[in-house]
């Protein structure tokens, strides 16, 4: 029993000392220093008791060790109280300073007989006999312990931070248990109970250690896990050493015999075989204990393999979200990937390239004005836990505001190549517990891995889109080029046909004029024949002029914007004169030409009279040329609202439907035109269209046409 107590005290001292050192190594912040001091005090207490247990029966030794114990015990309530102040962010300076003052007094006086003298001896050891001052100290001890417990209890109910609530829960429990250690005062008053109250110190430190691990209290998880690993590893070495030593003494006659030395070689081999698997086993259990079953290396390995199999951004997000849900046990998980997160910095406009948001509303996802999501995330740079952020109104207020609105508990920016490309957001855990340190570290590690994978996926997507666009563009351009090429080829054919026809049309009158002139010059021709020749020549030169005119006008209209000179034109007189002029031609062709005008005179319009004459004239000529003998051509005009409509209709050969679309283009002739009209250049309608469209509200079209029956052309002009 005595041995068990000794061992427990030794272990307890070791644990509390380790805890104190670990905390100091981790951070020299106020809370850590105070808590370390508390740990050291507990260590002194437990270690002192360990010595007392060891020296049971020696009053002098017990006396000095018990005075040593009080060096630790006296400041304990004060440090605990101070710790509670810092932890609960309370400020109660008077009580604190009074405590320090009293503690110093008690410490000084604890060396004197006013505090305690002699020893109450018990079978297991002993305890100082208290005197008057010890009673006052006991009161002080219980008072500060009570205040401390009160502080933590109140904080537990006040705080809304779930993480701190969890931490407080464990601290409170630890301190309640520590309070049980007060039972150790009993032997001082002659009550013989074993110093089992000291057990509370061991439970206290273990609980604190647990909450450190579980709830990031004081943040020493890594150090503790290392201490765990090294302690157990060295324990193995020692145990093996003693086992070997034992074997040597028992069976081989001591460690230095030849047999022992040669056995040593084999045993060393055996040790080396045991050692590595043991260390690995310890490391695994360390992961399980300290990282709550996370094995970051394994999870990352698994995830990396999964990443490498996906390249589509949406699939990648899905994998990540699933993993987060599984590992962090939260069903509120969101991943947002920003579009052009690394370019377009100037206009600051951001949008979402891809997102998967489970069980969150998304109103907070905005990229304009106050609480611009992108800017706020960009400003935080590293993972943020809402409960650890300052409250609203301070520098990180923007992101805190968004997190509150959205119900986000943790936000982790995804940063690749120093650029923010997206973010992970997490809501509450399903259990409503706070996120633990290992959760956050897991997120940190995965965030950086995910950022790279997402960036790759984005690049892949971008390249894919670029390729698609490029292909589309190439196809568009190819089609465009092909169309253009076809058009040009067609144009070339039309142009060459035009040249053939135009040159034929030009040569025909020239042939006649030249031929007849040469015959007249030969002489011996009767007067009446000469006259007949001259008339024919005049007619042919007129035709020649007309054709030349057409060609020139067409090329003029083709090359630049037609410059018209607009004047007021009275359509009544204009049309009457034009139709009168055409009557001679009509008679020669034996075609009836008629003009019908409304009874109310037409209003004047703004037009270039010369060009308008050519346009309407061309239509009349066309009708003549495609209308057989005894046919009829009618020119009519009327006012339709604010438009003037001029129609030229004939009883000619009509236009095949196939030829209508290209009718007004240059060099175009209806496929049946060649049959009737041998003088056409294919330029007439092109010229008409260009001229009319230069006029205000000007349009020309084939109003109706029936093959073999006739055609009506319609010119529309604005009044």
């Amino acid at each position: 029993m005595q041995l068990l107590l000794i061992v427990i005290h030794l272990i307890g001292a070791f644990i509390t000392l380790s805890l104190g050192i670990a905390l100091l190594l981790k951070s020299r912040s106020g809370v850590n220093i105070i808590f370390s001091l508390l740990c050291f005090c507990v260590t002194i207490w437990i270690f002192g008791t360990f010595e007392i247990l060891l020296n049971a029966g020696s009053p002098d030794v017990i006396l000095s060790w018990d005075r040593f114990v009080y060096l630790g015990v006296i400041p304990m309530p004060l440090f605990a109280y101070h710790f509670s102040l810092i932890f609960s962010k309370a400020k109660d300076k008077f009580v604190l300073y009074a405590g320090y003052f009293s503690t110093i007094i008690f410490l000084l006086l604890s060396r004197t007989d006013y505090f305690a003298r002699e020893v109450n001896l018990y079978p297991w050891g002993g305890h100082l006999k208290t005197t008057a001052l010890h009673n006052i100290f006991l009161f002080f001890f219980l008072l500060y312990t009570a205040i401390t417990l009160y502080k933590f209890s109140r904080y537990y109910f006040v705080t809304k931070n779930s993480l701190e609530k969890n931490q407080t829960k464990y601290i409170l429990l630890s301190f309640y248990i520590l309070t049980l250690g007060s039972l150790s005062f009993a032997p001082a008053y002659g009550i013989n109970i074993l110093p089992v109250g000291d057990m509370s110190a061991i439970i206290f430190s273990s609980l604190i250690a647990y909450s450190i691990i579980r709830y990031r209290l004081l943040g020493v998880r890594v150090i503790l896990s290392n201490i765990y690993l090294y302690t157990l590893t060295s324990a193995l070495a020692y145990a093996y050493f003693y086992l070997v030593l034992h074997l040597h003494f028992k069976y081989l006659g001591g460690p230095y015999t030849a047999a022992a030395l040669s056995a040593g070689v084999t045993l060393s081999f055996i040790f080396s075989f045991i050692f590595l698997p043991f260390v690995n086993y310890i490391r695994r259990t360390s992961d399980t204990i300290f990282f709550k079953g996370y094995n970051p290396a394994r999870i990352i390995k698994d995830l990396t393999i999964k990443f490498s199999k996906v390249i589509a951004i949406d699939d990648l997000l899905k994998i990540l979200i699933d993993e987060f849900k599984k590992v962090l046990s939260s069903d509120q998980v969101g991943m947002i990937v920003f579009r052009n997160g690394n370019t377009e910095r100037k206009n600051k406009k951001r949008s979402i390239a891809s997102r998967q948001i489970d069980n969150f509303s998304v109103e907070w996802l905005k990229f304009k004005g106050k609480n611009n999501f992108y800017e706020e995330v960009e400003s935080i740079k590293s993972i943020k836990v809402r409960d650890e952020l300052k409250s609203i109104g301070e520098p990180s207020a923007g992101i805190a505001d968004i997190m509150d609105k959205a119900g986000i508990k943790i936000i982790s920016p995804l940063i690749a190549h120093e650029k923010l490309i997206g973010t992970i957001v997490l809501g509450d855990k399903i259990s409503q517990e706070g996120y633990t340190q290992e959760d956050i570290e897991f997120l940190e590690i995965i965030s950086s891995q995910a950022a790279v994978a997402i960036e790759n996926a984005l690049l892949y997507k971008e390249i894919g889109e670029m390729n698609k666009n490029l292909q589309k563009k190439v196809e568009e351009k190819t089609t465009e080029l092909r169309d253009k090429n076809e058009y040009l080829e067609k144009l070339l054919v039309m142009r060459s046909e035009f040249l053939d026809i135009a040159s034929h049309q030009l040569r025909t009158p020239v042939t006649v004029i030249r031929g007849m002139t040469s015959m007249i010059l030969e002489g011996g021709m009767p007067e009446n024949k000469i006259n007949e020749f001259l008339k024919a020549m005049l007619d042919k030169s007129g035709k020649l002029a007309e054709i030349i005119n057409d060609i020139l006008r067409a090329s003029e209209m083709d090359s630049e914007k037609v410059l018209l000179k607009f004047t007021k034109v009275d359509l009544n007189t204009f049309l009457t004169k034009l139709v009168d002029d055409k009557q001679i031609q009509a008679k020669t062709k034996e075609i009836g030409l008629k003009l019908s005008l409304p009874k109310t005179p037409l209003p004047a319009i703004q037009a270039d009279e010369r060009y308008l004459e050519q346009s309407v004239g061309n239509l009349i000529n066309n009708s003549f040329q495609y209308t057989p003998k005894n046919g009829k051509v009618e020119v009519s005009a009327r006012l339709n609202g604010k438009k003037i409509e001029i129609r030229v209709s004939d009883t000619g050969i009509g236009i095949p439907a196939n030829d209508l679309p290209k009718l007004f283009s240059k060099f175009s002739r209806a496929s049946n035109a060649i049959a009737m009209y041998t003088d056409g250049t294919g330029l007439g309608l092109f010229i008409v269209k260009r001229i009319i469209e230069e006029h205000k509200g000007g349009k020309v079209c084939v109003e109706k046409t029936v093959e073999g029956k006739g055609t009506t052309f319609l010119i529309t002009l604005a009044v």
Partner: protein
Amino acid sequence: MPIPKKILLIEDDPDQVLMYEMELTKAGFNIFTARCGNEAFGIIKKEKPDLVFLDLLLGPEKGRDILAAIKTDAEMKKTKVVILSNFNQKDLPILVKKEGAFDFLNKSEYVPKELVAKAKEYLK
């Protein structure tokens, strides 16, 4: 006095008919004129002209169709047809000669007197 050679002129432009008929008649040829294919075929079959001048653009008809008709008709195919046209595509003379024309003359290059000389040459 030798029998005057018969020449058929297939042409629809009255001015040209007037001009060529007058000059060729003056040169002592016996001239027939036709404005279209059917008219021409009748004359060819009846008069068996020694030479035919054929225009390529004849109102609704194409001269080359008329040429083809002459050259595929057993009765007419031996007729010597010379194309007389103002078309001057490079390959046209070769084309019409392949189709049976004896020669191709560009109208604007020959005044009537020169055409007479050509006719005499063909009828030698």
